[in-house]
């Protein structure tokens, strides 16, 4: 019989102790059990990037992470990006550049972009395009998104 597993993890700076079924993905856990529905369910096959979150600062597809894998790890989702009511500079820049159309890809795009800017505060256009190459957008044609990331003000990027 399938035994559940107890894990401790930090999600958006909050400690959680959770009992999970091993066949639950991190995406299922976030959306269905913790109500964090900002992370989107797209292909569930690693192809679209809509489910992108940060695990220990690195962008990964939460649809391909098993819940037990996050034991002891630190997770950041789109819900943890803003500081209370104050949007993250990347979010401001996405709004300024009309980089959000239907919005389905946006949470994943923002998380991929954040992982890039955390490592590299002034990326080139090619570096931005590479960083979001695992995120599909069916609306914008990408240009507004690339511009939004490139023009996120470096001084405001620390958060």
């Amino acid at each position, binding site marked *: *019989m*399938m*035994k559940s*597993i107890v894990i401790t993890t930090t999600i958006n700076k909050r400690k959680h102790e959770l009992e999970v*079924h*091993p*066949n639950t*993905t991190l995406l299922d856990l976030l959306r269905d059990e913790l109500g964090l529905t900002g992370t989107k369910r797209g292909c*569930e*096959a*690693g192809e679209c*990037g809509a489910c*992108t979150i940060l*695990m220990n600062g*690195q*962008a*990964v*597809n939460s*649809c*391909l*992470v*098993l819940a*037990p*894998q996050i*034991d002891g790890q630190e997770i950041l989702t789109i819900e943890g990006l803003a500081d209370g009511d104050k949007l993250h500079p990347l979010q401001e820049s996405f709004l300024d550049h009309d980089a959000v159309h239907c919005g389905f890809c946006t949470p994943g795009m923002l998380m*991929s972009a954040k*992982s890039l800017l955390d490592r590299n505060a002034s990326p080139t256009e090619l570096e931005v395009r*590479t*960083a979001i*190459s*695992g995120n599909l957008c069916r609306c914008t044609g990408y240009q507004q998104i690339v511009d939004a990331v490139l023009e996120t003000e470096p001084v405001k990027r620390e958060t």
Partner: protein
Amino acid sequence: MIPKFDYVRPDSLRQAIKQLAASGTRIHAGGTDLLGCLRDRVFTADKVVSIGGLSELGGIKRASDGGLTIGALTTLAQLASDPVILKDYPALAQGALSAASPQLRNQGTLGGNLCQRPRCWYFRGDFHCLRKGGNLCYAVGGRNDYHCIFGGDACYIVHPSDTAPALVALGARVHINGANGSRTIPLESFFVPPGKDITRENVLAPNEILTNVSLPAPAPNQRSSYRKMRARGAWDFALAGVALSLRFGVGGEVEGARVVLSGVAPMPWRVAEAEKALTGKRITEDTARAAAEICIKGAEPMEYNGYKVNLVRALVEEALLALR
């Protein structure tokens, strides 16, 4: 929904091997391939054994002979950015960087990359084909756009790994641990052709774990590269690719060569005849073209994948000229 399974997280390699003794167990490293296979019911698992926490399988270390030992849990992102690999084994860094997307490279491991299952869409889909124990290959007479042009034998998969061709070109060996002890074999003989056993792609027994990969010290004038053609600009598997490792003499002539194709055969496809033809010669437009012609000799395209023949020829020629 992924079907149910038990999940164990052993804390040593020995414990992990013990856990694998039961039938119906599967190894879980990064999970980027495993989860897709389980979700799509390509195969099932009663028990999944996590190896993600095993420190024995991590790290990139200089070996005493000047070579490099790379733990199976090293991620593709680490391979693509490691300064020693970038300098001494560029083909491997390029192979890792060309694989999948940034997210998948952060999570996918080297061991998983070498042991990932084929991407044949019938195999991944709801078809009980030969490789799954059925009695038909649906690619024959079906859509075989992404299937092999070399080495097919009743099954026509291509091996999906981008690190494997680079590692074969670089002369890698793999270390394997199991209930009956450990063994080390050239990566080249790790892969199993369909003619030998159609149900598996490598020699691992169910209770064996690939622990690390080792590379020989690079020769003083060694240059290597991996070049891959995809159907789109962003992530995708190789339509065709070529890994090269060339050792040059003082006069610029090739002293030793390895030429390994990807995306065109059920395993990394070494072309010994092209290697021989290059040896002793300088790389010129003529010798590059001649080697490229040799690489497509004996190709057996299927109904929809003839384009791969031209891709291979062009890729080999370009890659050789770029390394000169």
